[in-house]
């Protein structure tokens, strides 16, 4: 635990990005931290999982969010502010995560960063995916549905679509790139 004042100052730095800690309205107890965890851990996990798509990363990043939040949080911050603050820490944590793949500002590539998060994430994720798939040509949509929504292997997808496995990978590559541009193009 840091002993210096910065542990309780009103800012949290994430690689140059500063997320200001909300000001407290009234002195409150440390129970905030535990309560914030209890009521938000599943929602934050889902928020992150919907963006990284795998359990190990989602677990690591969720843990990071709560550790960062608790380490740099005053004990007197109010609970409603804490909720939105947790989501903002989650957003910068995700941006840092994607920056490990591509050094440009990944936050600007994610069209969801400025949108207020929904209370229940998963139904929303399904809707977003449906809307995205609807913008794609039939063959692209088909390969993504088989691979991701039905969990077909490359071999099974190849049989289903009557293509070679190499061609399935090429089709998947084009489909994901096209879908990625569709997402990036919207704002």
């Amino acid at each position, binding site marked *: 635990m840091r002993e210096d004042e910065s542990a309780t100052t009103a800012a949290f730095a994430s690689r140059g990005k500063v997320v200001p800690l909300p000001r407290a309205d009234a002195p409150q107890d440390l129970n905030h931290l535990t309560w914030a965890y209890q009521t938000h851990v599943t929602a934050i996990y889902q928020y992150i999982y919907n963006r990284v798509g795998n359990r190990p990363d989602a*677990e690591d990043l969720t843990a990071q969010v709560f550790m960062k939040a608790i380490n740099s949080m005053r004990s007197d911050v109010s609970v409603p502010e804490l909720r939105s603050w947790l989501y903002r820490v989650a957003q910068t944590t995700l941006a840092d995560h994607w920056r490990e793949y591509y050094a440009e500002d990944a936050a600007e590539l994610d069209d969801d960063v400025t949108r207020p998060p929904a209370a229940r994430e998963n139904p929303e994720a399904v809707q977003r995916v449906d809307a995205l798939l609807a913008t794609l040509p039939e063959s692209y949509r088909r390969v993504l549905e088989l691979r991701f929504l039905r969990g077909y292997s490359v071999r099974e997808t190849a049989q289903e679509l009557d293509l070679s496995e190499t061609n399935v990978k090429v089709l998947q590559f084009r489909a994901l790139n096209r879908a990625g541009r569709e997402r990036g193009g919207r704002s």
Partner: protein
Amino acid sequence: MNDDPEQLDKYVEDLLQDRKPERTPLPDEDALRARQTAAMLRAAKPGAGLPSKEFLERMQGSIRDLVDERSARPQPAARPSRRALLITGGAGVAAGIAAGVAAAVGLDRLPKPSAPSSSQALVENGSWKPVKAVADLPEGTPVAFRSGAIEGFLIRNGDEVRGLSAVCTHMGCILNYSKLRSKFECPCHGATFEITGLPTRDQYDTPLPRLPSLSVRIQRGQVEVYTV
């Protein structure tokens, strides 16, 4: 270096197998977007996306350690008298705070919280917030609401409205209400609660605490909830 179908498929396979994908630097934005899109598609697969019991337990332990550590440090703003009891309860803490919000209007018929720890915590400096019109509440069917820090259900029986916390007393997930089965159901690990807030019998060796009641009142046709 250019992105190619083989490399992208390796990433996709990692996602599909729930492995941590390798962190390899990518050549351009398109390559990054393709992977972000793959992650989003993977997350939409039915049944994906809930935290595991083991992870939640691990997290809960870490959070408790951190809170203990912090409360061991002198902090002028904190009130030591209540701190001790508030950090010890694990899943009971959320229940406890919500229970402490008040003893609810029209709740005399309901049993008192069974676990002593879940009735001791207090919330101060709250206020009454309107959440729903009484007219919007069907007879006997819980309606979910969220206000400030509170996630809860309102249940109207005749002229009486009562409030229940929607936070599962197992690991803190938010409950859904199933009209079909007339139960509150936890999407995380399947715990269920009766409409009274009592846990369904015999699900766990150690029975879960009941869902805490929320303090509610009716003002000019609006249901108000006491919340922080």
